[in-house]
């Protein structure tokens, strides 16, 4: 353990007397990296994000303005890869900031990844993934989330934060998760000291779920609020990112800025869950995908730039409930599909490559004849990251019940 880490832990403990035991990044056998899990809600079209631009089926099934092209005024960024060398895979032109991270060896893609279950329902697919399952069979008893099981028995100062109004299913029944959409204006209580005193006493003893949740909220929000820098007037100062990183006022920008702020409090954030919505492009996909992909890519790049000091103990994984249909519909959109694209970003990610196995887009290779097949179980990606970066190899049977690991992807190093 490094001395500065000891000091950091000591300082955090002193500042957060209400919080529990400590575990932090550099401790051998400890909690490992901070893991940021970004969920693209709605089904992100992997075939637009990392596009097989010269695949004849891709060209045939998608109108020219609904696919990424190698030519024309807005060509996609070519990606050097040995994943399917015969195919010209390109990143969506609006996602160009991701290409820089890819080329610098920090960002990797996993293509044709997802849930091997045949569902095309957003809510079934999200639910299964967040519970860490492959199918409903045998999974009915599993009600908590894969991150809940990761964190169980791993005490840390600030186990998990979601930048959504409520915690996602992946953290279900994890009692110490906090929902913090943003830190602008702080996390103070309405009603001043009197309300704080009343509420603290009001929920001090109750065993009902409301009292328990309220108690934990009061304690942990106050601890974080106390760490926010304030001006002489007591108002929370605006966050100043490092290295001139610029967050936009989009869902991605706001959420990732919040994660960066919490990370830099150095209080041992273990997991951050970020939702980016709006990927359900049934209609007018061309413009809508471009806008969202641009916001996403710029936001992720800003976050990565801002958090450079933490890169050796920070891993980001990006997932979505499914990819989208190969063939476009008459609304200039795509309907729910199957295989999608996952991403891993981190100082210890073997970036600059596309992982998995490309199944191709010929009719006979498509899932149910219509969608990109899933050749990499989403759990293979998560399990590899948990094992290599969060010291959780021994916990994997508990975190992903019924999952049998296959050949490692080699996505990330210990």
């Amino acid at each position: 353990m490094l001395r500065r880490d000891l000091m950091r832990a000591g300082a955090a403990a002193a500042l957060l007397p209400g919080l529990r035991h400590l575990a932090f990044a550099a401790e051998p056998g400890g909690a490992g990296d901070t893991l940021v899990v970004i969920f693209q809600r709605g089904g992100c079209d992997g075939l637009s994000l990392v596009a097989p631009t010269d695949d004849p089926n891709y060209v045939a099934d998608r109108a020219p303005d609904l696919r990424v092209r190698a030519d024309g005024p807005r060509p996609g960024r070519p990606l050097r890869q040995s994943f399917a060398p015969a195919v010209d895979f390109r990143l969506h032109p609006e996602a160009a900031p991701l290409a820089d991270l890819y080329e610098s060896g920090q960002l990797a893609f996993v293509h044709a990844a997802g849930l091997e279950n045949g569902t095309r329902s957003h809510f079934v697919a999200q639910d299964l993934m967040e519970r860490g399952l492959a199918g409903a069979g045998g999974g009915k008893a599993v009600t908590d989330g894969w991150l809940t099981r990761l964190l169980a028995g791993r005490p840390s100062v600030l186990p998990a934060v979601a930048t959504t109004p409520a915690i996602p299913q992946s953290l279900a029944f994890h009692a110490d998760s906090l929902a913090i959409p943003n830190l602008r204006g702080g996390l103070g209580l309405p009603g001043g000291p009197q309300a704080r005193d009343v509420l603290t006493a009001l929920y001090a003893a109750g065993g009902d779920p409301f009292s328990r949740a309220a108690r934990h909220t009061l304690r942990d929000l106050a601890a974080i609020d106390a760490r926010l820098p304030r001006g002489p007037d007591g108002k929370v100062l605006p966050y100043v990112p490092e290295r001139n990183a610029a967050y936009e006022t989009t869902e991605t920008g706001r959420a990732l800025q919040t994660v960066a702020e919490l990370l830099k409090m150095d209080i041992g954030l273990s997991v951050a869950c970020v939702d980016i919505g709006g990927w359900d492009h049934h209609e007018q996909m061309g413009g809508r995908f471009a806008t969202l992909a641009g916001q996403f890519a710029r936001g992720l790049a800003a976050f990565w730039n801002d958090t450079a000091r933490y890169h050796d103990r920070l891993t980001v994984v990006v997932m979505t409930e499914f990819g989208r249909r190969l063939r476009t519909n008459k609304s200039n959109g795509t309907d729910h599909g199957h295989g999608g694209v996952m991403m891993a970003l981190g100082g210890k990610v073997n970036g600059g490559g596309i992982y998995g196995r490309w199944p191709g887009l010929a009719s006979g290779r498509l899932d149910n004849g219509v969608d990109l097949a899933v050749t990499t179980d989403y759990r293979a990606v998560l399990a590899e990251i948990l094992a290599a970066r969060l010291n959780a190899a021994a916990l994997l049977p508990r975190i992903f019940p019924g999952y049998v690991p296959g050949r490692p992807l080699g996505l990330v190093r210990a």
Partner: protein
Amino acid sequence: MIPPVDKLVLGRLAFGASAEDSAFIQAKGLNHWVEEQLRAPAGDEPAMLARLAAIRLRIRYGAGEGWPAVDELRPLTTLDKDVAQLWPLTDRKAPLAGPERQLPRREVAAAAIQRAIHSPWQLREVLVDFWHNHFNVSAVGDHAVAAALPDYDRTIRAHALGNFREFLEAVAGSPAMLVYLSNRSSRAGSANENYGRELFELHTLGRAAYLNDLYNRWREVPGALKGRPEGYIDEDVYEAARAFTGWTIEDGAGLGGGQTLPVTGRFTYVEIWHDNYQKRVLATDFDPFQPPLADGRKVLDLVAAHPATAHFLCVKLCRRLVSDTPPPALVAEAAQVWAENRRKPDQIRRVVAFIAKSPAMRDGFGGKVKRPLELLAGYARGAGAEVTVTSGLLGALDASGQRLFGWAPPTGHPDDQAYWLSSHVLRHRWALALGLSDNWWGTGPFDIAARLPDALDATEAVGRVHAMLTGLPPAGGTLAAILAGMRLAPDAPVSRRGDYVRLAGRMAAYCAMSPAFNLR
């Protein structure tokens, strides 16, 4: 401790107990109250119309291309308007600031809050809220849904206690849903599956009946070969999507040959966009070349009649009206009532009456956390406060995790407690009671002290206020927490203090934060 029956059931079948509703139930019994409530007339009574007319929402934006800066208070103007009258708000070329285009969303939401607090037809309002979540649309950021929202609210209100099959068709043809689930742009050739999928999964059969991970062909689904499949798979979704091609709105879309649809936002059916060929949905064959709208209507007939729909809708109704984990026997019996009455014009009214009069309605306590709207409306109702909705109150509710007509996914707000107990939601819900007590948002003076007897000490005052809200004496910890936090001696003669109104308001707000008032 379990609250008295009037408080208990009015926390479930109403947005909280008012003194009037409690007195009615105490005098005449719950069943009588339910019968009375289920005879709710259409529309708003004069007192509610006056309250709605008193609302002023602040609208504020900076100058832009073609418009000056605006900062003013406005009465509600869009509630009675037809979609065609509001459709100009969707015109991208018109010089209109975003807040003007979003105005109908804020106005319908303000009216919903006003009715939740003060409508005498509480059970109707609870069901309108239920159906808005069941048939969720989000108008936030979507100006077309916003323009169609007053119309959609009237559709929901017209059918909330009616027949489910008729309700489904009204929703399927509503401009708000046609925009929100993008069926308006669905065309023969490659239909848009968005509405078709959510029709099965969220509006009718439910996700438990989605068997796609088990079966790839329609004939493999158990019961299919007898014409009674147990559930649905993607083939049903594809075929249903084809059946609804051509169901659209007059949004100016091109028809070919230089012709375009009118620009009114109203429902229309475009035969040349419809996929006329034969289909098969839920193991039922559709002949090719049916008359206009017949394919879609046949799909609605099939899904409305399916046993999974009866079960799914009754699970949801019982979960809303009773608890997060309703007794399975109650759900099964309600589903039977649902199925038996499926051709009756008042099918939903009969099912709701059955659930409302069931023993489970008077049983148990604490199986559900009140949503923020239930909390704030129930607080105002219990305290007997006259509240006029303002922009500030609407903003506080929007921030609380319950943004009316602004929940982005088509599921509607979650109906289990995990969502409503997050740190973010809790922090904002605490503001709701305090804000009403202290009149932060200009919603009106809050004078619960006027409803208390004279000459009370601090202990008696907290006790009275707590009982007014919950029907129960405060738990020992609650009383002690409030007295200590407010620095009041237990026997302090508070009712003689100059700041008694404010003090009593704070006592009430803190009682409203107790677990006893937040559970139901």
